[in-house]
């Protein structure tokens, strides 16, 4: 288990922290954040490669804040792998064992078999493919049986197919070894594939921690929602608000939502894409009346993107707004670019970011 308590690290004008987070034993924790948010700094602090300005770091209950990197029992796979170019694959993998004075040929063999790299053991580093380098780097860390594996964008240099395959492989290793993993990335698909829990780092601060679904359902703020690539986020002004219903003036037109907000304030809001229903012919849809107090807007299909389980339509509304709508495969044949249509969504589908 990793416990970070009020950890602060200052570098120049940038401050990482104060950070507080607990990562459970055997958990796969993904650290998400934009470039420059401090992800690599945090990982380097965990690895002991940077001295924290204040705070404490506990691994399995032991305070390791002032402990040297070599005594922390962590495996570190940096970005671009940093394989030693003057050593062979075998020497790279055995490097940590030799440094600890351990002779463990069997361990090397079993890790290499698990990662399927036995065939390149005697080769140099220069001729290896990206995937092979990544596996050698993982083997170099795993051969030491680390309590915690720190992965800094381990698949960012790989092509899409190799990335997915490697992610699955890392996940398999994680399951087999039950190692706690802290994995840095800025790719949502990769996160979806790997993470038990996710931490979102922004400007050196952990703004939200939770399962990815929880983050999608209740993003901390509009920036988190945007970072998670949540669709249909707009700005609006509260025109009228009561305990029953609120009316917003937005680029989509007048929108009704639940909740009470102060009149005249500017807000960001999301229209949940799966909750939007569509009708091809404008005027034939659900009518807005007292019995059906939802939002109905008219638009024109400008693009359709086939996804695995649905089709995503991009619909232009008014002069410049675009809204994304997810439709089932059965609806695909009925809609083409340029088709006029009517969209309906209930007030509950509108989430205001406070």
């Amino acid at each position: 288990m990793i416990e970070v308590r009020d950890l602060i690290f200052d570098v120049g004008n940038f401050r990482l922290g104060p950070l507080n987070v607990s990562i459970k034993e055997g958990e796969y924790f993904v650290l998400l954040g934009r470039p420059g948010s401090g992800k690599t700094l945090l990982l380097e602090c965990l690895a002991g490669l940077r001295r924290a300005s204040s705070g404490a770091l506990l691994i399995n209950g032991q305070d390791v804040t002032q402990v040297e990197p070599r005594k922390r029992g962590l495996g570190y796979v940096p970005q671009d792998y940093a394989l030693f170019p003057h050593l062979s694959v075998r020497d790279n993998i055995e490097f940590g064992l030799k440094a600890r004075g351990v002779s463990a040929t069997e361990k090397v063999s079993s890790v290499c078999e698990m990662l399927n790299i036995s065939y390149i053991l005697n080769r140099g580093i220069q001729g290896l493919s990206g995937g092979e380098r990544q596996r050698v780097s993982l083997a170099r860390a795993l051969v030491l049986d680390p309590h915690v594996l720190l992965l800094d964008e381990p698949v960012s240099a790989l092509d899409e197919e190799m990335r997915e395959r490697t992610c699955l492989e890392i996940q398999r290793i994680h399951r087999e070894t039950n190692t706690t993993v802290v994995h840095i990335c800025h790719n949502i698909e990769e996160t979806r594939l790997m993470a038990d829990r996710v931490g979102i780092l922004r400007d050196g601060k952990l703004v939200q921690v939770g399962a990815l679904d929880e983050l999608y359902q209740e993003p901390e703020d509009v920036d988190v929602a945007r970072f998670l690539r949540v669709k249909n986020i707009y700005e609006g002004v509260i025109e009228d608000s009561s305990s029953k219903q609120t009316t917003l003036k937005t680029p989509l037109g007048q929108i009704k939502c639940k909740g009470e907000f102060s009149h005249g304030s500017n807000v960001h809001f999301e229209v949940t894409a799966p909750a939007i229903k569509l009708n091809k012919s404008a005027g034939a849809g659900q009518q807005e009346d007292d019995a059906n107090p939802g939002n109905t807007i008219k638009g024109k299909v400008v693009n359709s993107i086939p996804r695995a389980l649905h089709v995503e339509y991009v619909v232009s509304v008014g002069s410049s707004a675009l809204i994304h709508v997810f439709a089932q495969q059965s609806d695909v044949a009925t809609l083409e670019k340029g088709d006029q249509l009517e969209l309906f969504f209930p007030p509950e589908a509108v989430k205001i970011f406070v």
Partner: protein
Amino acid sequence: MQFTQQPVQSLSGNIFVATFIFISLSFLSFGVLLLFADITFINAEAIKWVFTSKETHHALWMSLWTSTLTTMIALFFAIPMGYALSRYRFPGHIFVDTAVDLPIVFPPLVAGMTLLVFFSHTSIGRWIEDMGLEFVLQPKGIVLCQFALSASFAIRSAKVAFDDVDTRYEHVALTLGCSPWRSFFKVSLPLAKGGITAGAILTWARAFGIFGPLMIFVGTFRGRTEVLSTTIYLEQSVGRLENAMAISMLLIIVAACVLIFMRRIGGRSSIGL
């Protein structure tokens, strides 16, 4: 002539290539012409003298061992100093960094004068001499003089070489269980080997060719503080120009052989030697 590594090019492209090759060949021709002039000046008697005279043998041996010892001492200081300058930022870093380069740019005679003044006119210098470590007019002084003038090349090259070694390699080594010492010797030093070798070559070459400051600091005593460049001066000063020229050729040949040998063992360096 085919340049397979070059892109397809038109007439202007060919003129571009030809211009650069022409300038390079002009430079080379100048060197060859000078060498040719030297060769025509030497006669068989001078060559015989070079191979048979005790003075030449002594000077050659003295040049070789002093330059080699100087290079080793320079590396002993250059490797830690180059690493420190590359990795650590400390107060006065820019001053130290500049001071390292000074001996490269100031006239070599200044080093000879400085050493002479230090050891003969300062209390610390005189105390060192009194302790039995005599440098002025002594063979040991040759090494000190060469070191003062050539160590900068080793330090500068080592710094550049360590700059080129990504610190991530060292970081990974630390997380894999290395102490800073082991990380240095197993990762940083092997990766900087090319640049350090280049520095060693430059240091050796500089030490091998030094003359002016030696004349001031250790004098030109035949068979005692005589290196090859001193022999050239001594022979030329008594009018035996053929002998001086023959020694010059020997110096060029020995220097070329040693440089080629060091390049072979050191591989291609990071500063292109």
